[in-house]
C-alpha cells in the first residue's frame, strides 16, 4: 500500500501540516484568546492577592510571569492533539506512512505559534503590571521566547500520554509540572540576575541548550506516546 | 530543645509508612483470593 515512494517531501509534510493547523486555529479566533485572557487574569490576581507594594511586586515579577506562562501553556496544551484524536485524523496520521515524529513537530510548532508566541508578545504588559524593572524586560522576553517552545515540546509528551483519557487535562498538569521545574528555575534566575545587574548570558545559554535538546528529542517521545495511546 | 520527640516521630512515621507499604499487598491478596473464590463458587453453582 505504501510501497511507492511518497510524492511529498519531508519538508512538504511539515509545512502542509503547519499550515493546516494554523488555518484550523484561526478559524476559531475566539478560542485563541482563551489562554491569553487566562494569562492576563492570573498575572493580575497576584497584585490583588499580595498587595500593590511596588518593591514586592518587582521582586516576585519574574516568577509570577513565568508561572502564569506555565499555567497558560498547560491549559492550551490539551487542544494540541484533542480535536484530531476525536475525529480520527490522528489515526490517519499514524498509518499515513509519514514519520509521526515530523507530524508531532509540525503540530507543536503550530501550537507554539498560537499559544506560546502571544505570551512572549504580551510580556511587556505583564511586566508593567508587575512593576518589573525595565532593564530586565528584554531578558524576560528572551527567556520566554526560548522557554515557551520547550514548554510546548515537553508538554506534548504529556498530552500524547493522556490523550485517550476522558479527564486527561487534569492528569496532564501533574505529569508535566515536575518536568518544567528546571526551565522555571533557570529562566527566573536569568531575569533576576539581569535585574540586579549581574551577568545573565550563561542562563540564556542553558535555555538555548534546553531548547535544542527538546526540539530534537521531544517529538520522538511524543510520537511514541501517541502510538501507545492509540494502540 | 530536646531532640528525642523528633527522632521518635521520624522513626514512627517511617515505620508506619514502610509497614503500610509492605502490608498493602498482603491485604489486597487476601481480598483478591476471596473475590476469586466467590466468583468460582458462583460459576460452579450455575454449571
Amino acid at each position, binding site marked *: 500500500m505504501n510501497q511507492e515512494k511518497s510524492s511529498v517531501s519531508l519538508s512538504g509534510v511539515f509545512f502542509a501540516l503547519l499550515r493546516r493547523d494554523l488555518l484550523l486555529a484561526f478559524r476559531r479566533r475566539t478560542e485563541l484568546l482563551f489562554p491569553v485572557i487566562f494569562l492576563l487574569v492570573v498575572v493580575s490576581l497576584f497584585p490583588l492577592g499580595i498587595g500593590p507594594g511596588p518593591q514586592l511586586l518587582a521582586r516576585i515579577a519574574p516568577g509570577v510571569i513565568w508561572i502564569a506562562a506555565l499555567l497558560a501553556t498547560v491549559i492550551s496544551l490539551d487542544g494540541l492533539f484533542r480535536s484530531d484524536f476525536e475525529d480520527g485524523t490522528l489515526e490517519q496520521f499514524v498509518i499515513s506512512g509519514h514519520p509521526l515524529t515530523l507530524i508531532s513537530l509540525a503540530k507543536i510548532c503550530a501550537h507554539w505559534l498560537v499559544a506560546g508566541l502571544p505570551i512572549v508578545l504580551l510580556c511587556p504588559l505583564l511586566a508593567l503590571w508587575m512593576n518589573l524593572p525595565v532593564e530586565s524586560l528584554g531578558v524576560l522576553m528572551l527567556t520566554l521566547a526560548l522557554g515557551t517552545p520547550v514548554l510546548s515540546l515537553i508538554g506534548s509528551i504529556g498530552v500524547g500520554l493522556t490523550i485517550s483519557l476522558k479527564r486527561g487535562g487534569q492528569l496532564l498538569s501533574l505529569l508535566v509540572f515536575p518536568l518544567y521545574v528546571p526551565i522555571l*528555575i*533557570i529562566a527566573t534566575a536569568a531575569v533576576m540576575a539581569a535585574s540586579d545587574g549581574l551577568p545573565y548570558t550563561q542562563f540564556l545559554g542553558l535555555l538555548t541548550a534546553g531548547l535544542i535538546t527538546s526540539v530534537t528529542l521531544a517529538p520522538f517521545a511524543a510520537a511514541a506516546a501517541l502510538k501507545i495511546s492509540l494502540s | 530543645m530536646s*531532640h*528525642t520527640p523528633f527522632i521518635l516521630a521520624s522513626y514512627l512515621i517511617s515505620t508506619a*509508612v514502610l509497614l503500610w507499604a*509492605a502490608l498493602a499487598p498482603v491485604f489486597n*491478596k487476601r481480598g483478591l483470593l476471596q473475590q476469586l*473464590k466467590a466468583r468460582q463458587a458462583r460459576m460452579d453453582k450455575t454449571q
Partner: protein
Amino acid sequence: MTTETAIKNKPRKNALVMFIHKMGSPPWFYNFSGKLVPWLWAIFCSLAAWALYLGLFKAPADYLQGESFRIMYLHVPSAWMSMMIYTSMAIMGFIALVWRIRIVEVLAMCSAPVGAAFTLVALASGSLWGRPTWGTYWVWDARLTSELVLLFLYLGVIGLYNAIDEPRKAARAACLLAIVGAVNLPIIHYSVKWWNTLHQGSSIGTSGNSIHPSMLWPLLYMAIAFKLYYGANLLSRARLKLLKQDHRKRWVQDLLAKENQ
C-alpha cells in the same frame, strides 16, 4: 549424522539465560518469587534491627547536631532508595517498551508505590531532622526540594497507570513517562541544587566532612537492608498483580484449586 550424535552435539544452553527466560513465564515467576520473598523479609528484618541497634545505641552523639543526627539512618538510605527505585523503574520501563515483556511491565509498575513510599519517608524524616538542626520543619534545601519533585514524578507515573483502563497499554504509557522523567531527573536535581546555592548562599550540608566509621557502618547496613525491603515488597506486589491480571488463566485456577484443598 545420526540422531544420537545430533543430540550429543546440541549446544548446552547457558543456565543464566535459561533462568531469565523462565522468569518471563508468570506461573514460574510466581512460584520462584514466592519462595524468595520470606527469605528477603527475614534478612531485611535482622539486618535492619542490627543496623538500628548500632546506629541508635552504639554510635556516639554528633558534635554539631547532638542526637538528631540519628534520623540520618532513616533519611539518607530512604533518599538513596527513592532515587535507585526510580532509576530501576525507568530501566525496566525501557526494557518493557522495547521488548514488550509483560513481567517487566508488571515489575516496573509495582516499583512505583514502593519508590513513592521511600520518598515520603525521606521527606518526613528530612523535615523532622530540619526542625532541631535548622529551626524549621520545611526548608527549601536542595535535597528536600528534589525529593518533593521526585514524589510528584512518582505520583504522575502511578496516576497515569491507574487512569488507563487496559492494563498493558496503561503500563506502556506509564513506562514511557518514567523514562521521560528519568531523563529529566538529573537536570531537575542539578538545577534545584544550583537554585538552592543561589538563594541560600552557604550550603547547609550535613555531611560535607568525613563521617566517623561508627556512624557510617549502620548507615550502609540500613542501605542494604532497604534494598532487601524493596526486593521483598516488589516481588510480593508483582505476584499479586500477576494473579489479578491472569485470574482467568489456567495456572491461577489450578493455584486456587490447590489452595482450596
